[in-house]
């Protein structure tokens, strides 16, 4: 399949997925018993004023037939208009734009650190004996099963309360970023190591690795030039999972370290039952997920051009 046809197929598939997510949310809002306008305003408990309800009815065109509402809703989404957050009284897109860079920084740093750690662990495990691999698999399982909310607490106890190296609250400084990034990166590193280890030791023990060694390449160049490529492929396959883990983790990490970001905005929106804000963030993350998945697949095509093409 040519690159253009492949890209076209990807974009088409992504649009279908986004449309389905948007439709599911539209139906969910209508499934809430009672007045949809009230639901948008935080449910019966919020005691929204008559004007606010009227504004919501107008904004969501609730006086129109359902199908018209649906089309209007889709039309707004196409222009990235997710409505107005009722708890913050600001457009959802604007609020998201303000906090997004924080979460993006946090996630990218964590992702980079996780890859680095996973490569080191995997390289170490593929070079060591039985004890190394036993320790490796133990570390991996723990890393993969330790929840972010507890890991963050343990790191604060160790590095903030006991040692006093890093602040427990993210104060915007570079030091304040260390513990949140570590909390987010460690479980991901555990998972990535698991994936990389097998393919890495397989690649380093293969005929072509032996041939490279015979040509006089050092172990290090062998690792960088050949091993890495094989280690990276299975990990790239799991990009979608990694992205989910980072975003779910960001909600928890931003809550623990009192750091402003997309996750924390989402959490306060859920507590306030701010439906436009919550659905806006959910749709946005679905969009990012799809873009990230497509990029990962593109990268896979570059790294492994001979690979099976879907």
């Amino acid at each position, binding site marked *: 399949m040519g690159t253009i046809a492949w890209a076209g197929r990807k974009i088409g598939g992504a649009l279908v997925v986004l449309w389905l997510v948007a439709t599911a*949310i539209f139906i969910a809002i209508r499934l809430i018993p009672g007045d949809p306008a009230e639901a948008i305003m935080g449910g019966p408990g919020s005691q929204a004023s008559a004007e606010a309800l009227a504004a919501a009815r107008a904004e969501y065109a609730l006086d129109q037939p359902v199908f018209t509402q649906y089309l209007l809703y889709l039309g707004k989404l196409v222009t990235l208009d997710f409505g107005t957050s009722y708890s913050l009284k600001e457009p959802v897109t604007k609020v998201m734009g303000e906090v997004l860079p924080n979460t993006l920084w946090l996630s990218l740093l964590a992702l980079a650190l996780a890859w680095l750690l996973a490569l080191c662990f995997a390289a170490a495990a593929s070079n060591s004996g039985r004890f190394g691999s036993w320790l490796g698999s133990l570390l991996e399982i723990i890393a993969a099963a330790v929840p972010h*909310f507890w890991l963050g607490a343990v790191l604060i106890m160790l590095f903030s309360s006991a040692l006093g190296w890093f602040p427990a609250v993210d104060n915007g400084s570079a030091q304040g970023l260390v513990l949140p990034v570590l909390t987010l990166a460690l479980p991901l590193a555990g998972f990535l190591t698991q994936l990389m280890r097998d393919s890495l030791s397989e690649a380093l023990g293969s005929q072509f690795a032996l041939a490279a060694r015979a040509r006089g390449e050092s172990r290090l160049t062998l690792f960088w030039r050949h091993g890495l490529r094989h280690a990276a492929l299975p990990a790239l396959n799991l990009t979608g999972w990694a992205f989910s883990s980072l975003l779910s983790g960001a909600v928890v990490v931003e809550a623990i370290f009192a750091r402003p970001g997309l996750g924390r905005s989402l959490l306060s929106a859920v507590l306030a039952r701010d439906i436009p804000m919550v659905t806006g963030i959910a749709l946005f993350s679905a969009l990012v997920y799809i873009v990230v998945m497509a990029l990962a697949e593109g990268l896979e095509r570059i790294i492994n051009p001979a690979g099976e093409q879907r």
Partner: protein
Amino acid sequence: MSRSAKIFSAIVILLWLVMALAPGLLAPGDPLAINPAQAFQKPGLAHFFGTDESGRDIYTRVIHGAGDSLAIGLAATALGMGLAIVLGTVAALSPRWLDEVILRVLEALYAIPSLLMALLIIAFTGPGVGPAIVAVGLSTAPGYARLVRSQIRSLKNSEMLEATTVLGHSSWLKVRNHLIPNALKPLMALVTLGIGQAVIWAAALSFLGLGTAPPAPEWGAMLSAGRVYLHLAWWMSLFPGLAIVAVAVSATVIGRALGGKVKSL
């Protein structure tokens, strides 16, 4: 996976079941009894795991918390797995176009990270234990459904089923006698892994203040309460967290031992 890890995990799970079914056996005290004079006691002989801000015994609370975590974990997994088995089986056995439609829907649901999906559901239902179970169950279903589908599909195309077709068995007989029993073993592994995950997700929701409310002895809720006193009373966060990790790790180890090849979760 080493033998000792499996044995250790089996012991942890057994202990967890005992704690859940008969907490009084291991901790006769009342998990809710307050005693302000004994607030913030360090772990010691009088209080193995220390006490919290109201002087409640953390050890007693951790033991009594097992019941909630088990119940929530089981209920959420049952819901998620049940949905996944129905969707996955229908997709695998139906004609191509319907399979494609179900796959697309699953993919769409999968595009929203699990915790975000759970938060989305709770935004509609409001917080609480019931919503947390529904949220965890529904948010884990799409991932499981895809695994169930591929499992059933590989069975469907196996020679074993071809043989039953040659023998002239009806399709219901095929599903009952061959598909379900053969899909069950990998499913058992998936269920065990799933319970471990569900315990973590449910605790995460309680930690965020959206599941079980604080005075109840639930592990996530205890962590949430301990967060405020992290610098003052580390034991309030350490022990409930250890309980969650022990259960989650053990469930993962046992799930893998059961499943062998069913890895990707």
